[in-house]
């Protein structure tokens, strides 16, 4: 479904702030893979997701989604294949627009936007039913401005928007990091439900090792711009925090498994 081949990305090349964020990353996701991504600060997790989403062009390498080479495709064109939820709850929705309007925008992802009505009556009914599944009471607030919602509600809405039209790839960039533990658990639960229901191919960054172990069928860990650990199948199921930390110190060559890694 997703094929990443040898991608490199350098920020601020030629300056004192030069940072090689991705150093030849290869990654292939099979259809329906739910991959969790962990790693310390600056390991390249978000950079990897942004590269796939096309926020900026990569320096080298290629990215293919479902057989389509998207390496040189603009961000808005790739959006046709990709659903995204960001770390910042403000980023995934338009605060000054209504809940139903936001959903209607998402329903038209990847389609030409012409002079037909931006939202139809039938759609509203459909959205009401969908919002009910979130169990946040949003179904009664269809015409409320999204800016009035809490962070957790906004993330749940963004998740719904990202999957309203089945994406070939779902990118979750620490989408629960800005939420309180209880809300985070709820959003993660919703994520699991939707991904499972639609069998979505998913890349989920998390700062929480336990979440990374508990979710998905495959786990990768990044370190200094490279994928250093890739665990799947039975091995993934049997993974514990201790074995993961052990694996990490073996790969990185350092004895002390960084606390930062565990804590985010």
């Amino acid at each position: 479904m997703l094929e990443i081949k040898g991608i490199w990305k350098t920020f601020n090349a030629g300056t004192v702030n030069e940072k090689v964020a991705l150093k030849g990353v290869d990654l292939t996701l099979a259809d329906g893979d739910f991959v969790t991504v962990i790693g310390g600060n600056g390991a390249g997790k978000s950079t990897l997701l942004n590269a796939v989403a096309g926020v900026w062009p990569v320096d080298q390498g290629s990215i293919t989604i479902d057989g389509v080479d998207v390496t040189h495709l603009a961000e808005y064109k790739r959006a046709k294949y990709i659903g995204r939820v960001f770390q910042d709850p403000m980023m995934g929705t338009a605060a000054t627009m209504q809940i139903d309007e936001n959903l209607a925008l998402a329903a038209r992802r990847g389609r030409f936007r012409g002079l037909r009505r931006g939202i139809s009556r039938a759609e509203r009914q459909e959205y009401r039913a969908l919002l009910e599944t979130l169990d946040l009471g949003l179904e009664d607030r269809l015409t409320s401005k999204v800016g009035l919602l809490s962070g957790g509600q906004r993330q749940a809405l963004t998740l719904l928007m990202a999957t309203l039209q089945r994406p070939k790839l779902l990118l979750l960039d620490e989408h629960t990091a800005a939420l309180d533990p209880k809300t985070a658990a709820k959003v993660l639960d919703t994520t699991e439900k939707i991904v499972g229901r639609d069998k979505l191919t998913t890349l989920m960054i998390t700062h929480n090792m336990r979440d990374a172990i508990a979710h998905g069928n495959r786990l990768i860990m990044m370190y200094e711009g490279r994928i250093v650990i890739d665990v799947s199948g039975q091995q993934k199921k049997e993974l514990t925090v201790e074995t993961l930390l052990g694996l990490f110190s073996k790969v990185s060559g350092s004895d002390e498994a960084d606390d930062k890694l565990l804590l985010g």
Partner: protein
Amino acid sequence: MGNFIGALPGAISQGLIWGIMAIGVYITYKILDIADLTVDGSFCTGGAMFVVLFAEGVNIWVCLLAALGVGMLAGLVTGLLHTVCGIPAILSGILTQLGLWSVNLAIMGMKANVAINIIDRAQLDRLLVSLRFVREVVNGDRPFYRHPIFVVGLFTLAVIGVLYWFFGTERGASLRATGANGNMARAQGINTDVNKVLGLMVSNGLVALSGALLSQYQSFADTSMGKGAIVIGLAAVIIGEALFGRVFRNFALKLLSVSLGAIIYYVVIQAVISLANINSNYLKLISACVVALFLSVPYWKGRYFAKKPGGKEVGSRA
């Protein structure tokens, strides 16, 4: 006082005309979140285009359409400078505005102003709106529906109607999303660059149309007629929002409040001229001060009166 009452219909007419320009400013400033300075130039471009074509005997609706068209072209240039060339929006607008100074002169045959000969009754009768009609309607020489307030009022309603429809379409909604949150828009597959260009075109088209109506109303166009237009537009947007923002929630009503804001602006200006007896040369200074004051109020409110219980979003633009 009698002086002021007598000048009121004229002030309202002018306010209505500038209100159409202010609606154009609303599209860029409020919806797209871009401060577009092209308007100072494109306002005159519309006026110049109109007067020159009208003097040639071209049908008045064609003249108005041509004005709308050149305005959209001006917006296109600013939009391309911003999106394709990566120049900051505000600077793109300034560049286009500067270039338009020459373009406007060229349209007017290298003259600083061109006039419509309204001494000629045949020419006058071809006009849709004119300062002359204000008095002629009062004197009973023309039917009431030729009064500029009535005619420009209809124009305003038509503009609001079309915009209300447009911003409710898929394209219009994507334009609002572009201004509200570019990241989100791109993630939803919206080409934000195309939308910015489109918004700038629609905005400047309206600004030029307003310029065409004003030059028709005053029966001439001159190179400096658009000077400070952006400030008047902002004033109208801010006044409209301050006075009607709490009551007018609907999008069409918001646009209407911009038009009302422009009318209030002109009535106040007229009051200052007639009642306070201030030299009209000081008007631009007064306008600048008033707009600066209104723009700073939300900031000060956020700084010094923040953290009121219940009030969550401070200094929000919505």
